[in-house]
């Protein structure tokens, strides 16, 4: 059981919002790319549409959830890490 007093949460409105907007957007494009790569046997026309529809929930989900981070720096670090992971996977899939 954690009895230590939890640290205060920094509001960092601007920093968190910016992280959610920018990194959330790139993350959504990365997720669309992953979907596109994994659903390769679907015709391009509909695969591209589904990938495009995926961007809105990922982007808005990231932007909505970003205020759960304890401060702005963590928001940038975690979302940046998620971006690296997604785009890394995408690069690996393309090379492999």
């Amino acid at each position, binding site marked *: 059981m954690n009895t230590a007093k939890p640290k205060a949460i920094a509001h960092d409105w601007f920093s968190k919002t910016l992280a959610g907007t920018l990194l959330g957007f790139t993350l959504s494009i990365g997720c669309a790319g992953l979907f596109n790569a994994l659903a390769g046997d679907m015709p391009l026309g509909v695969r591209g549409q589904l990938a*495009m529809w995926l961007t809105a929930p990922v982007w808005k989900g990231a932007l*909505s959830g970003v*205020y759960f981070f304890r401060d702005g720096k963590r928001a940038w670090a975690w979302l940046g890490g998620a971006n690296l992971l997604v785009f890394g996977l995408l690069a690996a899939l393309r090379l492999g």
Partner: protein
Amino acid sequence: MRSEFIRIYKSVHTWTGIVAGMALFIAFYAGAITLFKEPLARWATPPSATHGTAVPLDQAPNLIAQTLRDHPAAAKDFRLHLKAAEHLPSGLAWQVLEAGADDHDHSSARHFVATLDTGGVARVEAAHPSRLAEFIDTLHRVVGLPVDTDPNRWIMGIIAALYAVALVSGVIVLLPSLVKDLFALRVGRNLKRMWLDAHNVVGIVSLPFHVVMALTAVVFAYHDGFYFIQDKLIHDGKWATAFSSGGAPAKAPPRDPAAMRPPAELLASAQDFSPSFQATSLQYLNVTGPRAAVRVWGHDPTAHSPRFVGGFVAIDPYSGKIMNVDFLPGRQSLPNAIVSSFFALHFGTFGGTPVQWMYFLLGLAGAWLFYSGNLLWVETRRIKAARDDDGSHYPPAQRRDARWMAAATVGICLGAVCGISLTIVAAKWLHGRVDDLNAWHQVLYYAVFFGALAWAFGIGAARAAIHLLRLAAVFTFAIPLTSLLAWLLPSLGMWTHGSAATLGVDATALAGGLGFVWLARATTRRAMQGSTDSVWSIRREKS
């Protein structure tokens, strides 16, 4: 969850809600009406010799051949309407778009219709369809702005993004009391409690509807940009080349449209392919070119449709072969059906008329969600009279931000309501009396809208709310009264159609007018008898 997160998300909810709420009110009120865009277009269309009946199918080939011979420009894209309705031509229709116009903005298009006279000779004339329903749809699509252009859609996209964040944050704030307060609507002396319940029950119960609206609206605003970036980063430019219309063989000789299969045969192919499909129109595309296609548009009552006006099966008009069923309701591949469901869930294009009414009411409930959110904001910032006030003091002055927010809420929301009703009424009164009726629709709407806003700030929210609700009632009652008057006094030069759809417009407006009367009376009661320490009170005597 730590209460600190709740507080943070409460701030997020408050700010996103305040910024986006009033724009969303307009989007939802106009959107609810847009559900009945077709009945409204029919209501607003004057009787005409070239509209209102369907051309017999066996005469259609003759009409098509003559029209294409005399007007080759129509071959690119024309429509044969199969159903009779007041706003649909008895024959073919096509538009000529102005070069460089935004492809979402059809306001500059010139419309033509071709009909057969009794001697079997095609007559082509310019048509001037009422843009009333289109204008209300535009208000819906770009949150109250006048035209559907790129910059306006970007603004709408920002509002939609704020709306999505407001939904998530609202749910987070509500989580601790979600189960305990589900379905609660406690009417009583605690006004904040009442508005909170009234707001929450709509927000929580219809959350899936709102999540769909928020996310689809973000996509509708930004899809061009998403596709562009996606093409560069993901599809390596294949997307653009796959869907560009270039690359057609340059020197193919024009085909003779007289060799096309007659419409009856194309319809039979569609019917064979999907017996539950009900066709409403045939859209002929590039019929003299190598990639001629006819889209048989219609609905399938058992399935969801990919577009507001339905779905289609594409048929080769020269061979009668089915070319494409990606947009045919009920016959799509799973991925296509999933993509279509996003559109269908935004437009309510499944389940027919009952679902249109469900969406209408859920849309109005959504408008109320945003309105009540602002009421709650104002109520939270209320400065109450001292508890031990023995009645010898004047009520305390209310905060300026609360007074202004109340005035803005009343002015913008009720201004949009009044403006829409008046602009609908104008479709009949001004027809034939002004040169450019479609411009008048805009002028009237914005005159009422800004007038209401100025009035609300000028005399304060409490009085303005009463006046504007009464005005909304008057303007909305004027819709069925105009139809009644037109029927009683034909010399006025107006019209009343007898179709159920158009009478439904009048009946709905009558019910809406009664609703505004009821709201106006409740608002008056609040202003006269409610607590004096409120922006909504007009009593200024000692409490």
